[in-house]
């Protein structure tokens, strides 16, 4: 192999880096609108799934416009914050702020039978990375109407199962409150009675993801406590 001078090595690496950087930034900029559109559709699809409406890539937007009637942002005292777009709120960034300053989004949906449900986004930590989803509540702000969970990179076959329907299907009908007290829903190891209003079966082998999910539900939903109690309808 030829012996290259230091000057050649410097120029070679500089040119290589410039080419690579141009290529990558071109790809990133050109593809960004498509990628963001995908994320937006995905978000709408997840929300619709939490109210048991199956949507795919094509009809997600029309269905979203049809069912999701309004959205607003609350603070931890349960007051509506004006001037913030609920859809644009990034939960991960909110969770870094102190609780009093966090924006808490709520989406209101009206089902075909006229029933009103409220969709709350949740986000927490699993074993390998973030887990997130949507919980929809009936207008008593106590009964879970449906859920949709997803994850960034939980173990396939184990923690990753939280986005499967057998797991999500255990949530509808569960209660967040016991009397006046907020207790949320626990994910229990070793199984639980299906009639238990505050517990669902954990996933075998996915203990840390299950526990993370339980914590996510408690942490995210408890911030709405004041609002739930205030606007509860019998």
């Amino acid at each position, binding site marked *: 192999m030829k012996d290259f001078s230091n000057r*050649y*090595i410097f120029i070679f690496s500089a040119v290589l880096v410039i080419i690579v950087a141009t290529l*990558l930034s071109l*790809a990133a900029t050109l*593809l960004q609108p498509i990628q963001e559109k995908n994320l937006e559709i995905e978000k709408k699809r997840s929300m619709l799934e939490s109210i048991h409406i199956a949507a795919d890539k094509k009809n997600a937007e029309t269905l979203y416009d049809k069912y999701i009637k309004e959205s607003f942002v609350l603070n931890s005292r349960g007051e509506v914050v004006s001037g913030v777009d609920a859809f644009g709120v990034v939960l991960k960034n909110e969770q870094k702020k102190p609780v009093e300053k966090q924006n808490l989004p709520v989406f209101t949906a009206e089902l075909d039978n006229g029933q009103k449900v409220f969709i709350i986004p949740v986000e927490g930590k699993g074993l390998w990375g973030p887990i997130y989803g949507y919980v929809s509540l009936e207008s008593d702000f106590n009964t879970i109407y449906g859920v949709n969970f997803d994850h*960034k990179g939980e173990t396939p076959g184990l923690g990753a199962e939280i986005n499967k329907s057998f797991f999500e299907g255990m949530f509808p009908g569960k209660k967040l409150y016991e009397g006046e007290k907020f207790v949320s829903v626990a994910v229990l190891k070793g199984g639980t009675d299906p009639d238990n209003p505050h517990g669902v079966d954990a996933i075998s082998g996915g203990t840390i993801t299950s526990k993370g999910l339980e914590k996510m539900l408690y942490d995210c939903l408890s911030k709405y406590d004041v609002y739930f109690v205030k606007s509860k309808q019998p």
Partner: protein
Amino acid sequence: MDKEPLFSSKNLELITAPLGKKNPITIQVLGICSALAVTVKMKPALVMAISVTIVVAVSNLVIAAMRKYIPERIRIIVQLVVIATLVILVDQFLKAFAFDVSKQLSVFVGLIITNCIIMGRLEAFAMANKPWPSFLDGIGNGAGYGLILVVVSFFRELLGSGSILDYPVLEKLGIYSAGYENNGMMILPPMALIVVGLIIWFQRSRDKSLIEHK
């Protein structure tokens, strides 16, 4: 100089050898880490196999094309830059045009960068060969890697989750009603290693020339 045909027997050998006698996983024992991670289910294993094949083939091609201009002292860095660029491009394209697949693979796409097979092939082959054979060598090694991934994930999914490509075969066959239960062990990473071990055992018992003599 006579021009060698594109698919001469020597070139075809570059593709077929890594499937058996020179398999990157079972013989060269490279890329084991990702073989453990993505083989719980067949679908991620397949997509991973395809992505790795693309990256190893194209990076082999690129490195072989500029092998005469790469200063030896910084060659590893140059190889890494090429690999990383390709992986990020694949990831970006998946995110834009195959969103569901990219969600399934998530972090594993990024981890292709650290797959030892790719750097191994660049060092061992592309640095010393012409672009076309290097490209074929990449395809062959990617396929050899993918073959093992698919075999391992087939057994792990079938015995661990009772399905093939997410289709519940065992349930349809009615085996559960006869008292059969899925083996939870198969889902855990150590079983991937044991299955790979069994494949190596099988391969060596069939082909005695692979056994080292003292």
